Every structure is written in structure tokens, then in C-alpha cells.
């Protein structure tokens, strides 16, 4: 079942894979912790897009409910993450994740 004619589920899959990969590379290569958080959000939104597309394909609502859960959990995750970042900023005065290299072995 196509929401927009000419745009099949495959297109959504490609789009969300691309979005997910952009997010994943951002997490791995960006140095600023806030941008890293944004990249994780991008990954989660890629998942949401994919879930909604599949929900449409299967004509079921459960994936859309799942998206609600993902959004709520993402908000909680961001709250915890920013609080951790705030704590680090107070102690080190920067949000560059390269200062975090005390633990090695």
C-alpha cells in the first residue's frame, strides 16, 4: 500500500538506511558531544521513519505505537545525556569528547 504513488516501501528503506548511516558516522567521528547526541537522535528518527513506512505496508498500527515509545524513551535519554554532559562541562570546562581519556588499559 503506497501512501504516495510511485514511492514504494523500498524508497523509505533506502532513505532511512542513509539517515541511520549518517547518524552512525557522526557518532563515531564527531568530537563535540552535543553533535554526537544529535547524531544519535538522527539514528532514532531514521528508525521511526522506517517503522512508520512498514506500518503503512502491513496496515497495522502497532509499529506506530512503537514509534511513540521510541520518542518517549528518546526524550528521557536526551535528558539523562544532557545532564551527564552538564556534569562533565562543570568539571572540565569543555564538551569536547577528546578530554575523556582518563580510563585506559
Amino acid at each position, binding site marked *: 500500500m503506497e501512501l504516495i504513488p510511485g514511492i514504494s*516501501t523500498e524508497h523509505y*528503506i533506502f532513505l*532511512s538506511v542513509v539517515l*541511520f548511516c549518517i*547518524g*552512525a558516522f557522526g*557518532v563515531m567521528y564527531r568530537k563535540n*558531544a552535543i553533535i*554526537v547526541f544529535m547524531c*544519535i537522535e538522527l*539514528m*532514532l528518527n*531514521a*528508525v521511526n521513519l*522506517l*517503522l512508520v513506512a*512498514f506500518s503503512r*505496508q*502491513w496496515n*497495522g498500527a*502497532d*509499529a506506530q*505505537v*512503537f514509534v511513540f*515509545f*521510541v520518542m518517549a*524513551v528518546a526524550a*528521557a*535519554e536526551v535528558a*539523562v*545525556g544532557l*545532564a*551527564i*554532559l552538564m*556534569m*562533565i562541562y562543570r*568539571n*572540565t570546562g569543555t564538551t569536547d*569528547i577528546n578530554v*575523556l*581519556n*582518563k*580510563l*585506559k*588499559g
Partner: protein
Amino acid sequence: MNELLTLTGLGLFSMIAEIFNFRKAIFPVIVLGLLGLLGLCYMDWGSYNSTVTHFSMMKVDNFSIAFTSVLTATALFWFMMSRSFFEDQTSMSDHFSLVLFALTGAFCLTSFTNITMLFLGVEVLSLPVYVLTGSRKRDVASNEASFKYFLMGSFASAVFLFGTAFIYGATGSFNLENIATYLSTQPQLSPLFLVGLLLMLSAMAFKVGAAPFHFWTPDVYEGAPTIVTAFMSTIVKTAAVAAFFRLFYLSFSGIHGEYADIIWAMAALTMVVGNVIAAAQNNVKRILAYSSVGHAGFMLITILVMNDFAAKSLLYYTAAYSAAGIAAFLVLYLVGSANNGETPLNAFDGLVKRNPIMAGTMTMALLSMAGIPPLAGFFAKYFIFVSAVENGYIGLVVIAILSSLVGVYYYFKIIIAMFFGKPDNLPTYFLTPIHRFLLLFVAAIIVLTGLFPDFVMGLMTI
């Protein structure tokens, strides 16, 4: 379901108890509540009609009851162990409620029948632990551990969700039973499903701390306060492995051949990497961190074997490992808190002369982890090896035995330091009654579960 409500209620109570000046009541209420939870588990066990699901989201069967009992007992020990650590802090009720909410997540992880519930369980378990890891606010190491754990954990969650989306795309359902039915009717698996399975497998390996996704474990375990490390290496690990097993047992066991090689390689790599790197460490906390990676490898063997006996031996392994972990981390915490939080190997020198109870229990715990008969750890490893040999994974068992020999080396390094080291300029320890009781009790449990393994394994009759 009553278990879930009890845990949530306890968490909410200890969250607001401090506001109403019930601070003194928090600890007794939690202990009573957890004992009540064990009672509920006892009542639900066996008599429970295990075909009933709660809106097809959760099913309280013997698997979940057995693991919940182990988790609850471990949590009880954990609360007794950490009382003195949090009592002098203003945020005691916050910490305790976070732990109870994490336990709620752990319960969801042992009884889900739907991927939605698995996801929520993972998150409800992880989010409080991210916060607890960073609970020493002024300590940069604790901050760093917390940040790394958060980053890796949420990355793994995103990968997990992506895999879930693909599996939903292939099967049209989040329900584990429906997925299993789909797999049994499908002659050819769609690539969509295989991609989803691979992503989900990686994410679960991430959460369990299995190689090659283990690199966060040592850093996080070292940076976190020792009390929190004890929680992570016992309860979080048990719940994560149980969830891993349950997910694959209930939904993917029909296509075992598709992923058996991956789990085989993962288990072998995890055991070798965890044990070999642990042998090269000098900080006892880091040794235990890497050894917990190694133990995750042994637990993965049960997921590879994937039958009823494997479920029983996994339960037994987690119980034995949790008991030994609580004992070892309690001694580590006591030694560390008298030594500015540092736990190098030479802080354990001559511990037997300074405090025989601590040294004795630590020795028991380490011998159990190393797998020396007749302690619990030996039979735990033995049952897993038996189930693996019966199913023809002889090569893996050889690797497992070799790596546990390496384990014997580094566990004995600590034991030798405790018994033959010179205790120059090192403090003697005075135990609070609750800690002394806990040390002796856990030591007794390590011996007794070793002598009567049928009791623990009998809890699980799927």
C-alpha cells in the same frame, strides 16, 4: 504481574519517602518489599498458568520466575552491601529508587513476549544505570565512565531499534510467537529479516558486553563507583543475558543454523579476549571487569546450545556468578574505601592477616569464579560444558577450558597476594555487623549452591 507492580511501587515509595521524612523507613521497607517479592515468586512458581499473557506483552512463566528470584536475591544482597555507602549522602532515596526502577526493567527483560516490552525493559534498566555510573559528580573518571556508557548504550539501543524495524518489516509483528510462526512457515528468509537479525544480535552482544562489542565494559566498570560496578556486573549482566536467551529461544530458535556460527565465534572471542587481557591487568577492579567479559563468553555458549538444559545451566551460572560477584565487589569496595578509592593489586597484600573474614570470602568468590570444585562456579561451568559437548560444540569447549585456565592464573594472583603478601603500612579493617553477616552468608551460599545445584536448576522447568 504482581512482581512488576511491587517493584514499581517500591521505587515510587523510596523516591518520595525522603520528602515526607520517612528516610529511616526506606531501607527496611525495601528489604521487606524484596523479601515479599521473593514470596510472590514462590507463590507464582509452577502454579502459574504460563499460557496467560498480559495483552501479549508479558508472560510470567517459570523462566521469568527463576531469573526474577535470582535477580531479587542479588538485589537484596546489593542493598545490604550498599546501605553504608549511600546512608551518609543526601540523595539516598534517589539512588535507591533508581536501583529499584532498574530492577523493574530487569523484570521486564525476563518476562517479555513482545519486542516492545524488550525495548522498554532495556531502556528502563539502562537509563538509571547511566545515572548511577556518574553518581560521583566531582570525579572526572566517574563522569567519563557515565558518558561512555551512555553513548555506547544509546548507540546500541539505536542499532537494536533499527534491527527491530527490519524484523517488523519482514514479519509484520512484534510478537515473538508470531515471529516464530512466520519463520516456521517461510521456506526462504527475506534479506530484510536477516539484516534485522544481524543488527539485533550485535545490539544484544553490546548490552551483554560480548567481544567484539566489549570495549566499553572495562572503562565503565573501572570508572563507576565500586558499588555501582557490583550492580552492573551482577544484576545488569544477568538480566541482559536472560533477555538475550529469551529473545532467541522464543522467536529465533527455528532458524538456529542461520546465526549459530556468529554466536560460536562471538563466544570464543569473548572468552579469550576477556581472560587474556584480564591476566595482564594490575588493578583488581579492572581484573574483575575483564573477567566479567570472560564470563559473558561462557554464558553465550548457552545461547548457542539453546535447549531446556542450556536454560537451566544459564540460570545456575548467573546465580553462581552473581553470588561470587557480590562477595568480590564488597571486599573490593571495603579495600578501596580505605585506600582513596584505588584498588591496585598490592592493596590486597596480606589481607588474611588484616581481616580473615574478608580474605576468606574473597578467596571463596575468586575460586568459585575460577571454577574450582566443589564451589558453585565449577558446576556452573561444568553444566555448560556438558550441554555444549552433547550438542557437538567440542572445539568451543576446548577454547573455553583453555581460557578458564588463564582465568585460574589471574584469580590466583589476587589470592597469593592476600595470603603471602607483606601487609606493610596497610590498614586493618573493621567490619560493620551487616557487612560481616553479608560476607559470611554469601560465602555460605557459594558453597551450598555448589553442593546442591539441583535446587537452583530445579527452579527452571520450561
